[in-house]
């Protein structure tokens, strides 16, 4: 491996794990830049590793490239062409959804898919094939992408939906090459507001029932769940359904300027929080207060940031977890596996795993991405401080339960999955490997996540671990 100069430390949003990489040398001239980059990739000596990094919002090591090079979102910001006739945007991959929204909402256009933060880049959104609160209606991000430009070791090409590389890249976590620009379809909106229907649900069975019954009548749907509640209140939630508001839905004051959009960052979290700040007591108190103050049943008008990106109002909120950081565990189980879902929620509750409001969402049909996360079913995401005792064993057990149920864990959030379970969770892994093997035989675009989970190599080293765990869990009282 070549010796790198000027390395710096990069970590994920959960602040763990981190590794050192060098910034990719770039040419200042936008016209020459991409050719120079393609040339650099094509002539990289054996053992070189390189990864495109966006805004570092993936929680674990998906955007880390230990001992290699990373490009940053500042490297790809040259093109921004909005075509209102075709309702399409061609933009460089380093633009964030935040910037796209700031520029296009006032014109009456919204992105089809936004996750819980708008600080993700276009490139990152494709690489993780992100989903939003409308997955059950509109699918994942890639459903609204026409094409993108990709730099691989052999070429710099525009990849379209008919190319297998397109589907290996959607959810491929950056390991197919560098996305430099993409063309996405946009959604026409009348206003920048969401008409939100809020309803409380006293327990998880009712949450599931309500979402099944009502999701299809709304574009957006999500449940915020108190994963610490137990007994009859297990999985109590506040469910919100949303619809883009029409001008007629707005009060006269808002209707004067229906497309106004100016999200603001109200607070910045300092980097001095001790690791124990977010503990069982403080998290439980927060969840309790939040559940109590939620209205039982209400219809309201909310702004796009307030509905979609509430946490973005506090910048660097991940610092509140202190130096040791936290992880997000997001898994998904297929429809029909509601019992598994409830059993897992029960497990978190019984283990008293401290987690702020967890997010439950019902997925619609999958995309064709080989490693794309969503498939029809339920997904739950929990933020958990790393210092939680017994966390490793708990999540290992749940990984296994999820895999057995035909579900999977989300790579964009992962920082500790059992590698042996990946082929079971992602049955199209071999198909993905074939495509990537052809486009990048030397394994240049291998992230720390890819190395940790042996995504590129076919070896399953410790089948016995899976068996032991399976046996242990099968015997336990947890299922």
């Amino acid at each position, binding site marked *: *491996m070549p010796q790198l100069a000027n390395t710096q430390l990069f970590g994920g949003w959960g602040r763990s794990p981190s590794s050192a990489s060098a910034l990719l040398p770039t040419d200042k001239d936008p016209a020459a830049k991409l050719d120079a980059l393609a040339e650099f990739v094509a002539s990289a000596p054996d053992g070189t590793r390189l990864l495109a990094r966006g805004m570092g919002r993936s929680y674990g090591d998906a955007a880390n490239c230990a001992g290699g090079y990373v490009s940053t979102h500042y490297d790809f910001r040259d093109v921004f062409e909005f075509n209102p006739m075709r309702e399409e945007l061609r933009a460089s991959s380093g633009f964030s959804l935040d910037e796209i929204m700031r520029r296009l909402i006032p014109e009456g256009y919204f992105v089809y898919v936004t996750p819980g933060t708008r600080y993700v880049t276009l490139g990152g959104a494709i690489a993780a094939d992100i989903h939003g609160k409308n997955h059950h209606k509109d699918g994942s991000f890639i459903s609204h992408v026409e094409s993108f430009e990709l730099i691989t070791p052999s070429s710099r090409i525009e990849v379209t939906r008919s190319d297998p590389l397109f589907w290996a890249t959607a959810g491929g976590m950056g390991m197919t090459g560098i996305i430099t620009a993409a063309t996405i379809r946009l959604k026409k909106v009348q206003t920048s507001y969401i008409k939100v229907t809020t309803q409380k649900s006293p327990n998880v069975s009712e949450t599931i029932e309500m979402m099944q019954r009502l999701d299809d009548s709304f574009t957006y749907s999500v449940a915020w769940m108190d994963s610490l509640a137990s007994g009859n209140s297990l999985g109590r939630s506040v469910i919100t359904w949303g619809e883009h508001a029409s001008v007629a839905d707005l009060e006269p004051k808002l209707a004067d300027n229906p497309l106004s959009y100016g999200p603001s960052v109200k607070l910045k979290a300092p980097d001095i929080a001790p690791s124990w700040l977010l503990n069982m007591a403080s998290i439980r108190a927060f969840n309790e207060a939040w559940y109590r103050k939620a209205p039982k049943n209400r219809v309201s008008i909310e702004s796009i940031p307030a509905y979609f990106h509430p946490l973005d109002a506090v910048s660097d909120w991940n610092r509140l977890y202190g130096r040791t*950081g936290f*992880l997000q565990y997001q898994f998904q189980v297929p429809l029909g596996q509601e019992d598994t879902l409830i059993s897992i929620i029960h497990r978190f509750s019984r283990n008293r795993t401290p987690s702020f409001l967890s997010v439950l969402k019902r997925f619609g049909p999958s995309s064709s991405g080989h490693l794309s996360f969503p498939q029809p079913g339920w997904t739950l995401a929990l933020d958990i401080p790393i210092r939680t005792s017994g966390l490793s064993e708990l999540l290992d057990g749940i990984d296994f339960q999820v895999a057995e149920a035909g579900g999977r864990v989300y790579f964009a959030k992962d920082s500790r999955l059992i590698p042996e379970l990946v082929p079971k969770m992602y049955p199209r892994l071999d198909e993905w490997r074939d495509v990537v093997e052809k486009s990048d035989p030397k394994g240049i675009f291998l992230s720390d996540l890819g190395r940790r989970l042996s995504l590129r190599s076919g070896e399953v080293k410790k089948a016995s671990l899976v068996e032991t765990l399976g046996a242990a869990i099968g015997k336990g009282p947890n299922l």
Partner: protein
Amino acid sequence: MIDALGQPQCVLIIGGGSDIASALVDKWVDMRCQRVILAGRSFSVMEQVQSQLQSHSSAKVEIVYLDMADHESLAPLTAEVFERFPEIDMAVLAAGQLGDQASDETDPKRIEQMFDVNATGPAIFLTACASEFKKKGAGTIVVLSSVAGEKVRRSNYVYGASKAATDSFSLAMSEALRGTGVNVLVVRPGFVSTKMTQHLAKAPLATTKEKVAADIIDALAKKRTLIWSPKEMRWVMLVYKHIPRAIARKIPF
């Protein structure tokens, strides 16, 4: 690659025969660790650890020769091990010898040997590991130090001083490595009931190798850089270090 909870996938251990080290690997192979490289001088001891590990895990266990006292070859051989096993993400320094104060303090040869194995060798090995991990942009080094190195006592000052050298060396190296992706954890166990100490009387706050191993795993998850095991030892040592010498003299060790 080490995961968010500090669990390694491929570990190099020097002093692979050490009780604490083998208790640690025993736990790691039941977690994410897929390959263990035992390094040391005594093949027979390492082979015992190897078969012990393979009796309950399908992790691959390799044995390589590294001699802490052979300062000429230590650095190039360590680099070779890293080249042969590029996936090494954790190195554990567990080599060391306790010696015997009564004979050590009168024999310059024995003093030299003690410092060779407990201080000079470790400094060379740690430097080699740090440089390999820096190239890789990631890696963790666990240094098994000792409370004997935190405050050197008259009853075993030859051993204590050699451990003190390694303890200070590691702590300062840990600071120097900040921002490189290389983390160093210094572990100061108290009195551990192991084969190295079986001939000695049990000290207060004595602990077991399994407990020390569990404390190390916990410390790695929390990204600590210095721990005592058991953790109460920290406060005992704090007091002990600050007792005036005139009074400390009255303490019988």
